């Protein structure tokens, strides 16, 4: 798939960055805690108006026709702002799977609405493309194309319009889209991160449309694009928190001097800088490999998958240590980055799985 022209992407990055600085600052982020979505829905509407929900969808579906590099751009900016909107689930993975089945006429309106952002897709199950996999789900599909059972850890299910279910049935991955308006009950699960909204979703003979046109390639593409988007988000978040921390080291005085003048902290900062740049490099390389359909795409995406997950975790952990007591409070923003970095550890398989995938890809290539 193609991506947008470099200049267009730069312009979008500029305006998205300006928008997020003005409209999605720390105060706005914290207000999200009181919304059932975890964010002010006004913010989502603004993102829709900017055309970002359709960035990864082709023009025929009303999208912008962007590629992985464009998703990288959006996600790294959203990550910077620690933004909890369901972009990864609805606009990257969900949109990717739905548009791959566009020949199914039942999906036409759903696709249009998801691309425009009017509808939101939440994702659950145990398929590899599911961000938070629930291996203990007990979902069953009935002969009349309805679904019953419970699946947990579905982010934003309570406020979503559709739930995309990916499960293994007889060693085969089956994918369904289920409207949430009938026979679906969502129960909020308490999350450690106050901005995340995981739900246990209970279906009782809920009507489901099977996305039976999906090929193995489609499923793998959705997973790869999801991993790359998540990596970009993590790289952006890690960089933002790193910058906050460096600023603090320059302005916090102890012993009559800025604490950033002490080598013990300087050396930690230098090491973290290497990590932050490595995450950005890996995320960019993954996006490029997808857009250019490189032979080593699986390897490069796996690399970004574990590098960015580990880097975000490390930067968030060390940022608190570098700040000291001030970051051991909820008034300081560091804990929100730290909680998110931890919530993202298991997403799309987690770092150790990506590391194993990376080595396998190297073995296969040789």
């Amino acid at each position, binding site marked *: 798939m193609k991506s947008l022209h470099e200049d267009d992407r730069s312009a979008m990055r500029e305006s998205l960055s300006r928008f997020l600085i003005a409209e999605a600052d720390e105060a706005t982020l914290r207000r999200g805690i009181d919304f059932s979505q975890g964010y002010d829905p006004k913010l989502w509407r603004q993102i829709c108006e900017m055309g970002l929900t359709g960035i990864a969808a082709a023009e025929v579906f009303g999208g912008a026709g962007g590629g992985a590099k464009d998703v990288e751009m959006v996600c790294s900016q959203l990550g910077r702002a620690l933004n909890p909107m369901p972009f990864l689930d609805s606009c990257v993975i969900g949109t990717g799977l739905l548009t791959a089945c566009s020949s199914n006429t039942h999906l036409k309106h759903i696709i249009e609405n998801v691309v425009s952002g009017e509808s939101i897709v939440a994702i659950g199950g145990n398929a590899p493309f599911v961000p938070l996999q629930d291996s203990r789900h007990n979902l069953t599909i009935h002969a009349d194309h309805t679904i019953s059972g419970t699946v947990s850890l579905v982010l934003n299910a309570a406020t979503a319009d559709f739930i995309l279910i990916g499960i293994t049935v007889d060693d085969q991955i089956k994918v369904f889209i289920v409207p949430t308006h009938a026979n679906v009950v969502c129960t909020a699960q308490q999350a450690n991160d106050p901005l995340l909204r995981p739900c246990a979703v209970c279906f009782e003979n809920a009507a489901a449309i099977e996305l039976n046109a999906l090929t193995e390639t489609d499923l793998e593409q959705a997973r790869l694009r999801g991993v790359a988007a998540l990596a970009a988000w993590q790289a952006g978040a890690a960089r933002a928190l790193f910058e906050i921390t*460096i600023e603090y*080291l*320059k302005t916090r005085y102890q012993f009559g*001097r*800025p604490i*950033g*003048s*002490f*080598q013990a902290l*300087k*050396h930690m*900062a*230098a*090491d973290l*800088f*290497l990590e932050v*740049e*490595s995450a*950005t*490099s*890996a995320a*960019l*390389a993954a996006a490029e490999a997808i857009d250019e359909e490189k032979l080593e795409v699986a390897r490069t995406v796996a*690399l970004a998958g*574990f*590098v960015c997950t580990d880097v975000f975790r490390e930067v968030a952990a060390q940022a608190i240590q570098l700040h000291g007591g001030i970051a051991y409070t909820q008034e300081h923003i560091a804990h929100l980055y730290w909680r998110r970095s931890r919530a993202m550890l298991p997403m799309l398989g987690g770092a*150790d799985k990506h*590391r*194993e995938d*990376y*080595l396998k890809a*190297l*073995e296969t290539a*040789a």
Partner: protein
Amino acid sequence: MTTITQESTNQALQNAVNDWLDVHWDTANRRPINATEYDERSWLKQVLDAGYCVPSWPKKWFGLGLTMQQSVLIERTFQARKAPGTGRDRYHLGAITLSKMGNTELKREMLPELLTGPICCLLYSEPNAGSDLAGVRTRAELDGDSFVINGQKVWTSDAVSADYGMLLARTDWDVPKHQGLTFFLFPMKQPGVEIRPINQITGESKFNEVFITDARVPRRFVIGDLNEGWRSFQTAIAYERLIMGQGITERKRGAANEGVHPLIALAERTGHLDEPIFRQRIAQAIAYREVNKLNNERAKEEMQSSGGISLMSLSKLAMSRIQHGEAAIATDLLGAEAILDGDSALDSANANFDAAKAYMNSIGGGTDQIQRNIIAEKVLQLPRELDASKGVSFRDMKSNSSAS
């Protein structure tokens, strides 16, 4: 001959270089055409006169006014014909430093000499001035038209073959340490220069100690200004660190560049390839190397688009964890066998060598700890640490000999 400029296409550039080589270089016999043997100085003179020695330098300074990428392309074209002598705008630290910091007369006199001779050696570190390099105690005293040099230098590679060394010496003892240094182009082939090889931890002997007793250097061989040596030195060391981040200290092994990765191959030979812990460690080690390559690519783009060096500064530090890490995994894969060495235990010998050689990157050219200071201060703009020697004249500074 067609004139090549920055606007020339790569193809035109390669054609021009190949045309020149057709007339001047006998690839089959690896010597200049019409010569009976390869004489380095006379060949380098021809390369210099053609501008291919330092293509990215201005025309009035022996170059062709081309870009650095074009210079790299010229070097590749030379390499394909097995012809030496180009790319000295990137590798010849002495000539690079002289061209950046030297005055016009010295450059005119000495650049052709340096560029047609062996690489300059580096006379920086001393037994008591390592990380705190500005504390060098080698003394340079003016006597008529020349300086008399006395002192001891260490970690000097190519000391025996070099005609010249880049010397950092103290010319004023009554000012703070950075302010009394001068940078010299020092003639190595003279009485009063004694070279003793060092037996390194790897078993190699590439470094030397250089003892200098009443040796002389002409007054006009000062690079930059008198007592401004620290500035000239900064230019020289920045280039050295840049080269190290590309992994130049590593031993190239045939298998490293093609086919299965050496660590995967070793894991297979030692029967550990299916063990999850080793698999995770090996994947991580290979990943560090791949990510460093990606960082270096972005660093080059950064340099070309904005002249920034923030990414460039990271690769030497990254290389340390790569090299130490890979050697540690290889050692662990070998287990008890790793205590062996020599030709009948090559895997072990390699692991032991690599484990030792990794320090070449993490200590040489400035330790990792110094490099972290540089990243933190120069790139992240964190404040400098209080310097106990600030404002104190060098003569009154605490040193190892006065600290007891």
